[in-house]
C-alpha cells in the first residue's frame, strides 16, 4: 500500500479530540427543540417512538378484541381489522423498535460509551430526527385520509396492496410508502453518524475490542440498516410508480373483479425478494442492539465479565453478515424457484449457531456470578427465556418442509412476537430501568417496577406461548375471523379469548410503567452517579445527567476493556474503564499494551 495521502489534514490524533469544535446552543429553542446535542436528539427520538408505539399497542388491543370475541365489537369490521394489523406491524417494527434502538439508544449511548463529546455530524443528526418526525406524522396522517390507512399487511405485497380489494389502496398506501421513504432518508443520516462516530470518535485507548457490547450491537445493526433499507426504498419507489403512474414493475396482467387492468408483464415475486432482502436484516436490526444491551445488563448485574467477549463480537458480525443471505426463508411457500429452498434452509439454520453461542454465553455469564436480582437483571433473564423460546420456533420455520404447514399460520405470529415483540421489548424495559438514573438523575420506583415486570413477562408469555398451538391446529394468520370450520375445535376460541384477556392485563401494566416514568421524574429517589457500580464510560461522567459535551474538561482515557468486574485481588468488584493501572492493585494476569508492529 503506497502511503501517499495527505497526513496533514486527514489526521486528528485521538488524544486531541477534546479540541474538536463543539456545537453550542444559544437559546432555549436550539437547546431543546432544534438541538444538535445527541442526548437531546436521543430523547426526542425515544419519546416520539414510544408515542407512536403506544398507538401500535392500542391497535393490538383492538385486533385482539376482534379475535378473542368475534361477534361483540361491531365497530371493528374486516376492513378495519386489516388496517389495524398492517399499521400495528409496521409501527412496531419500523417506527418503534428501529427508531428506539438506533435513534434513541444509539444517540444516547454511542458518544457516551466510546468517550466522545457528541456525534461527529451533529447537524445531520438533528436533521435525521426531524425527518423521522415528519415520517411519523405522514404515517399518522394516513389514518385520516379517505379510505383510511393501508390494509395490505406490513409486508405490502403487490398486486393487492394497490388494488381496490384492499382497504386504503388509494391515499393510505401512498402515504405509507412516502412515510417509509422519508424514514429511510432520515435514518440514513442518523446511521452515518452512528457508524462514523464508532469508527472515528473513540477516545484515546478505546480500541474496537474494548467497546461495550451495547455499542457493538448498535454498530452492526446500523451497518445492516444502511445496506438493507435501500432495498425497501427501491421497492417503495417502484410501487409508488406502479400506483401513481401506472407502470408495471411489479404488476402482471390482472383481471380484477371481472375487469381487465392495463398492467402487464411485471413480477410480484420481485417485490417479495426486495422486501425480504430488507425485511430479514430488519428483524436483526431490532435484535442485535437488544443482544448487545442485554449482554451489558447481565454482566453488570451479575458482577461478572461477559463470558467470551470475543465470541460475542464475532457472533454479532457473523449474524449480521449471514442475515443478508437468508431472506427467502420468508418465501418458502411463495412460489419462488423451489430449489432455493435448499440454499435458504441451510443458511437459515446456520445462523442459529452464532445465535446459540450468544445464548450460551449469557447463561454462562450467570454461572459463578454474583447475581443481583435488580429490575434490569430480571428483564434480562426474561429476555433469555422468551428469546430462546422464539428462536427455537424459528428453527421450525427455517427448516423448509416444516415451514410448509406452519407458514402463514398463528405459529408464525407467535414466533415473531416471542422473538421480536416480546424479547427486545423486555430489553428496552430493562435498559430503561438501568439507565433512567443516568438520564434523569432519579431512580424509578421499585414497587411499580416489580409489578410491571411480573405482569409483562408472565403475561406476554401467556399471550404468545399458547398461540403456537393455534398455529399447529392450522389457524391462519391475518384472519378477521376463523368462523365455522371442520378442523378447529370450539375450545380454540376459548384459548383465543384467554389470549385477549391477557393482552388487556399486560396492556394495563404498561400504563403503570408509563406512570412510573413520569412520577419518578419528580418524586423518584435521587440517584447516585453510578448506582449499579458499572465500568463503562457513561457512568463516569462528572455530571448526572451528563452535561453538554459529556465529559467536562478532559476526555476520559481508557485503560481496559469494559468488563473488569470482580477482578481477583481488586478492592472494589468493578474497575471503571478509565481507571489507570497504577491505581489498581489487582492480581489479574495482565500485560501492558505494546505497540504491535507488522
Amino acid at each position: 500500500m503506497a502511503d501517499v495521502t495527505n497526513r496533514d489534514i486527514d489526521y486528528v490524533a485521538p488524544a486531541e479530540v477534546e479540541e474538536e469544535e463543539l456545537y453550542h446552543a444559544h437559546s432555549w429553542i436550539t437547546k431543546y427543540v432544534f438541538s444538535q446535542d445527541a442526548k437531546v436528539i436521543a430523547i426526542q427520538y425515544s419519546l416520539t417512538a414510544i408515542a407512536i408505539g403506544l398507538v401500535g399497542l392500542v391497535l393490538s388491543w383492538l385486533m385482539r378484541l376482534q379475535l378473542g370475541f368475534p361477534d361483540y365489537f361491531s365497530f371493528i369490521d374486516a376492513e378495519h381489522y386489516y388496517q389495524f394489523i398492517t399499521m400495528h406491524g409496521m409501527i412496531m417494527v419500523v417506527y418503534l423498535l428501529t427508531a428506539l434502538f438506533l435513534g434513541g439508544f444509539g444517540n444516547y449511548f454511542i458518544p457516551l460509551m466510546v468517550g466522545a463529546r457528541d456525534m461527529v455530524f451533529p447537524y445531520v443528526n438533528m436533521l435525521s430526527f426531524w425527518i423521522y418526525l415528519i415520517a411519523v406524522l405522514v404515517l399518522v396522517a394516513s389514518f385520516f385520509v379517505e379510505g383510511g390507512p393501508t390494509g395490505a399487511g406490513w409486508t405490502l405485497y403487490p398486486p393487492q396492496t394497490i388494488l381496490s380489494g384492499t382497504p386504503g389502496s388509494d391515499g393510505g398506501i401512498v402515504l405509507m410508502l412516502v412515510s417509509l421513504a422519508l424514514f429511510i432518508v432520515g435514518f440514513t443520516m442518523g446511521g452515518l453518524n452512528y457508524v462514523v462516530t464508532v469508527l472515528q470518535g473513540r477516545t484515546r485507548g478505546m480500541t474496537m475490542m474494548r467497546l461495550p457490547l451495547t455499542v457493538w450491537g448498535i454498530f452492526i445493526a446500523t451497518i445492516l440498516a444502511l445496506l438493507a433499507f435501500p432495498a425497501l426504498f427501491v421497492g417503495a419507489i417502484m410501487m409508488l410508480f406502479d400506483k401513481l403512474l401506472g407502470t408495471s414493475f411489479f404488476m402482471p396482467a390482472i383481471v380484477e373483479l371481472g375487469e381487465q387492468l392495463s398492467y402487464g408483464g411485471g413480477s410480484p415475486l420481485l417485490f417479495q425478494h426486495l422486501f425480504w432482502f430488507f425485511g430479514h436484516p430488519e428483524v436483526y436490526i431490532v435484535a442485535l442492539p437488544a443482544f448487545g444491551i442485554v449482554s451489558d445488563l447481565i454482566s453488570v448485574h451479575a458482577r461478572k465479565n461477559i463470558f467470551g467477549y470475543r465470541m460475542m463480537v464475532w457472533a454479532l458480525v457473523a449474524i449480521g453478515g449471514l442475515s443478508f443471505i437468508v431472506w427467502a426463508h420468508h418465501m418458502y411457500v411463495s412460489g419462488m424457484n423451489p430449489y432455493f429452498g435448499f440454499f435458504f434452509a441451510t443458511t437459515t439454520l446456520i445462523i442459529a449457531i452464532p445465535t446459540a453461542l450468544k445464548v450460551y454465553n449469557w447463561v454462562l455469564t450467570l454461572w459463578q456470578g454474583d447475581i443481583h436480582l435488580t429490575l434490569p437483571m430480571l428483564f434480562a433473564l426474561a429476555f433469555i427465556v422468551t428469546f430462546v423460546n422464539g428462536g427455537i420456533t424459528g428453527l421450525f420455520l427455517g427448516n423448509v418442509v416444516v415451514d410448509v404447514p406452519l407458514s402463514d399460520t398463528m405459529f408464525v405470529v407467535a414466533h415473531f412476537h416471542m422473538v421480536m415483540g416480546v424479547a427486545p421489548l423486555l430489553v428496552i424495559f430493562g435498559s430503561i430501568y438501568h439507565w433512567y438514573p443516568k438520564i434523569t438523575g432519579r431512580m424509578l420506583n421499585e414497587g411499580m417496577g416489580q409489578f410491571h415486570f411480573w405482569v409483562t413477562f408472565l403475561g406476554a408469555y401467556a399471550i404468545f406461548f399458547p398461540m403456537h398451538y393455534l398455529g399447529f391446529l392450522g389457524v391462519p394468520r391475518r384472519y378477521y375471523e376463523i368462523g365455522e370450520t371442520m378442523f378447529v375445535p370450539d375450545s380454540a376460541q376459548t384459548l383465543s379469548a384467554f389470549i385477549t384477556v391477557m393482552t388487556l392485563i399486560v396492556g394495563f401494566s404498561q400504563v403503570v410503567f408509563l406512570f412510573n416514568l413520569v412520577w419518578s421524574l419528580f418524586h423518584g429517589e435521587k440517584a447516585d452517579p453510578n448506582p449499579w457500580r458499572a465500568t463503562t464510560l457513561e457512568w463516569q461522567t462528572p455530571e448526572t445527567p451528563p452535561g453538554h459535551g459529556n465529559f467536562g474538561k478532559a476526555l476520559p482515557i481508557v485503560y481496559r476493556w469494559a468488563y473488569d468486574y470482580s477482578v481477583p485481588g481488586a478492592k472494589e468488584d468493578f474497575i471503571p474503564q478509565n481507571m489507570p493501572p497504577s491505581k489498581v492493585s489487582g492480581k489479574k494476569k495482565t500485560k501492558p499494551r505494546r505497540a504491535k508492529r507488522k
Partner: protein
Amino acid sequence: MIVAFVLLLVVIGSVGFHLISPWWWTPIASNWGYIDDTINLTFWITGFVFVAVLTFMAYCVFRFRHTKGHKAHYEPESAKLEIWLSVLTSLGVIAMLTPGLFVWYQFITVPDGADEFEVLGQQWMWSYRYPGKDGRLGKTDPRNVTADNPFGIDTADPAGQDDVLVQGEDLHLPLDRPVKFLLRSLDVLHDFYVPQFRAKMDMIPGMITYFWITPTRTGTFDILCAELCGVGHHAMRGIVVVEEESAYKDWLAQQPTFAQSLAKANAGTRRVSTLNAGGSVR
C-alpha cells in the same frame, strides 16, 4: 429464590402445556407424514435444548444469587468450552436439517404419472380445471378472460376445448393417486391451503406455481386462503372432497367442458361472443 422458582415454573409449565394441550395437528390426510415426522424430530431436539438451557439458567440464579460477601468468579473465556458448544449445536442443526432437506426434495419432485389439474384463485373464490380426455390443460391468458370465459382459456389451443371446468362447486380428488396442483391467480396473491394435506403454496398472478400430494384418506376438508388478498381474505373458503376413484370419475363426468360451456353461453345469450378478442383493456 422466588425468581429461580418462577423461571423453573415457566419451563415446567411450557412442557406441561405441550403435553396436555388438546390443540394439536388435525389428523393428516395426505402422504406428507414425513413432514410430521420432521416436526416431531425438531420438537425433541429443540425441546431438549429449551429445557436444558433454561433449567441451567434457573439453577444459576438460585445458586449464585447475591449474598453478603459472595464474589463472582473471574473468567473471560474458555475456548475449549465454546468449541464444544458450537460442535454440539452444529450437530443439532445437522440432525434437523438433513432429513428436512430430503423431504423437501420429495416435496418439489412430482412423481411421474401424477394427475395434473388447476386451481384458479381470484378475489375471493376458488375454481378448478381438469385436463379432460386428452390429459392436457389448454394454455391461458388473463387477457382472454370474459364473462363467458372466466378461466381465460386460449380458444386457439385445441388442448383447452375439452378441459373440465368446475366453478362454484366443491373440489373432488381421487383417493391414493398422486395429484399435482397447478396454481394460478387472476388478480392478487392467494394461497391454496388444506390443513389436513400439510401442503400449501401461494398462487401468483402472471405465474404458475405447484405442489403435489397423494390423498390418503377419504373425507371432506376445508380449503383456506393463506395469503392476505384483500378484505375478503378470511372468507375465501372452499371444500375438498376426497373419495374413491369410481365416485370421483362419476362426479367428473357430470362437469361441463370448456367447449360445452361456451356453446351454452352462446346459445343462452344469442350473441356472437368475441372468442379471441382478449378482454377490453381499461
